[in-house]
Each structure stands twice: as C-alpha cells, then as structure tokens.
C-alpha cells in the first residue's frame, strides 16, 4: 500500500493535524477546548481512514465518535463545570516529579516504537517477497479494474460491501455480543448517574442509609412512602 500524488499531500496534512490536535487536547487548560481539539483530531483520523481505503470505518468514526461520544463528553463537562480550572487558579498537570517521570517514559516508548517500525517494515516487505514499488503497481492495477463513479473522477471500491458481508458472515457472534455490551453500558450509566431522590423513589437504597438520609433531609420520606 502506497499513497502518491495528492493522496500523499492530504495524508501529511491530516496526519500532522491529528497529531497537533491531539497534543492540544492534552495541553488545553479548559476541558471544553480539549473536547473540541479531540473532535478535530478524530475527524483528521477519519480522513486518514478514507485515505487507507476504509470509508465505512471513517463514516462510523464520524457518526459514533464525533456525533455521539463527544456530545456526551461535552454534556458531562457542562454538568461538572469547574470554574477554577478555566480561570487559571488550579494546576492542570500532576506534580512536577510525576510529570517528568511519565514524560521520560513516554519519550522512551516513542523512541522504541519508531525504532521498531523503521527496522520491522523493511523486514516485513522482505518477508512478503515484495517491495514498496511492486505493491504500489499492484494497487494501481487493482484500482483500474474498479468501476468508475458517476462523476467520472473516482472509482467505486468494494471495501464497504466486503466489510458488511464479513461482519455478518465471520463476526456475527461478536456483533451480537457487542449489542449486549451496549445494553449493559446504557443500563449501567443510567444506574450510576441517578440522584439520591431517584434512588429513593425507586426503593433502591439500603434501609439504614435511608434512615440517616431522611434524618438529614426530611423531604426524602415523602418519596419513600409514595413508592
């Protein structure tokens, strides 16, 4: 797999944008800014998915991450809004020693990973008895064989179709399990985020705890007797 021409240009633009926005996510003082930078990082990664030929994953990324998860994040940030952080009174990072130690660890990790990639990729190509150029030529000939789209400038890939069919053919059990996982997540987050009032009216509080809470806040008793 090799990108060339405008694809290479856009690869570098979106790759650098993803990394830069990721850095700003970690360094921004305001959590809302962090969330917005994370959104731009996710969109850039979605563009990289498109360049790697995974249009379906890119669409899912935009819909689920940017449309769902990040909206949830923004809601929670608004709910637990902490003003001191934005006004610059509180330290946003850990204590200096811990930050230094973790940054040294991260630097070692990135050096190790980059070294491994630079050594392993030529070995991978040699192992597959091929070169980057041969792969590019193969990919170009595969691209020529695809049907042309309605605009005449792009070709229709079969990747999305393949993903869809193999999702049901080879991964149907994990697919069903994923739906159970999502159900558990829904129920769990509703359970966790309930207030004491809601718990009392659902008759879901330990009796001893309930007596203490009623002593502190008599209004709860009305809810309790009603249910």
């Amino acid at each position: 797999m090799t990108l060339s021409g405008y694809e290479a240009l856009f690869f570098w633009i979106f790759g650098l944008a993803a990394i830069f926005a990721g850095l700003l996510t970690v360094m921004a003082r305001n959590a809302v800014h962090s969330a917005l930078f994370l959104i731009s990082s996710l969109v850039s990664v979605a563009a990289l998915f498109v360049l790697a030929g995974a249009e379906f994953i890119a669409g899912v990324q935009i819909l689920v991450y940017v449309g769902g998860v990040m909206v949830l994040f923004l809601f929670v940030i608004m709910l637990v809004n902490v003003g001191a952080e934005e006004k610059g009174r509180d330290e946003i990072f850990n204590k200096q020693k811990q930050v230094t130690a973790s940054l040294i660890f991260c630097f070692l990790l990135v050096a190790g990973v980059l070294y491994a990639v630079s050594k392993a990729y030529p070995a991978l190509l040699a192992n597959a008895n091929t070169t980057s150029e041969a792969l590019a030529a193969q990919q170009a000939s595969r691209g020529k064989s695809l049907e042309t789209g309605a605009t005449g400038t792009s070709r229709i890939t079969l990747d999305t179709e393949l993903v869809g069919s193999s999702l049901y053919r080879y991964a149907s059990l994990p697919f069903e399990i994923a739906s159970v996982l999502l159900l558990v997540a829904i129920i769990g987050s509703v359970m966790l985020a309930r207030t004491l009032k809601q718990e009392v009216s659902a008759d879901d509080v330990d009796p001893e705890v309930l007596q203490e809470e009623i002593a502190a806040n008599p209004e709860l008793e009305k809810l309790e007797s009603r249910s």
Partner: protein
Amino acid sequence: MIMQSVIIPALTFLFQDGSGGFLSWLWEWAIRAWDSAKQPDLSKFLVIGALLFIIGVAGVLTRRNIIVIFMSIELILNAANLNFVAFSRYLQATNSVDAVAGQLFAVFVIVVAAAEAAIGLGIVIALYRNKETIWVDEIDLLKW
C-alpha cells in the same frame, strides 16, 4: 589551543569531503526522508498511530482532570484503530489473508470505546455528586 583541539576537528567533522562528513550524511538522510515522505506507505501510518498513542499515554499520566484523562483514552483507542486499518490495507495489497478483518476489529473497538465512555462518564457524574471534585489526585479513597 582551543582552536587546534576543538574547532578544527569539529569543522573537518562537519565539512569533510565525500561520505564521511556529518553534514553530507544529514543531507543524504534528508533527501531519503523526503523521497519516502512523497510516497507514504504502511510505516508512515504506523508512525502517526504511534505518536497519537504516545500523546494519549502522556495525557493519561500527566493530567489531573478525569474527563481529559477519558479523552486521552479515546486518543489511544483511535491510534490502535489507525493501525488496524493501515494493516488491513497493507494485507489487501499483498493479497494475503482475509484483509477485512482489521476493519471489522476497528468497528468493535469503536463499539467498546462508546460503551466505555458512557459508563465512565456516568461514574464521573456520580463521583462529582459525592466528592465535588474531578481532580484525580483528590479522589484517592475507594470508600469515604
């Protein structure tokens, strides 16, 4: 004295003729890097994935705000997804094993990330209601 012992060897090291000099080595390295950058392949995807992963790890380790820590975890999962998709594309190009598996796995990673975010943010809300803080270094008791 300094001239002879430091500067002249340094200059010869930098500007030596042929392939020995540091600058010519740097120049050749830059040309090779530019050539490979014009045709990004699997290794470039892996490099970008690795950098995103490291940024996420740094965020998890250094930030105090629990919501930003969650966002850093999302960055880490995204870096993993990028690797899955890049390898899927590479395997497709080499006509080897079933290449869509990487994309399938990326879908499941996204599903698990969504579930994790929902549960985690529910915990954050419950925690904020009880402790009135989102700084992780102040949430140091399992029971209070």
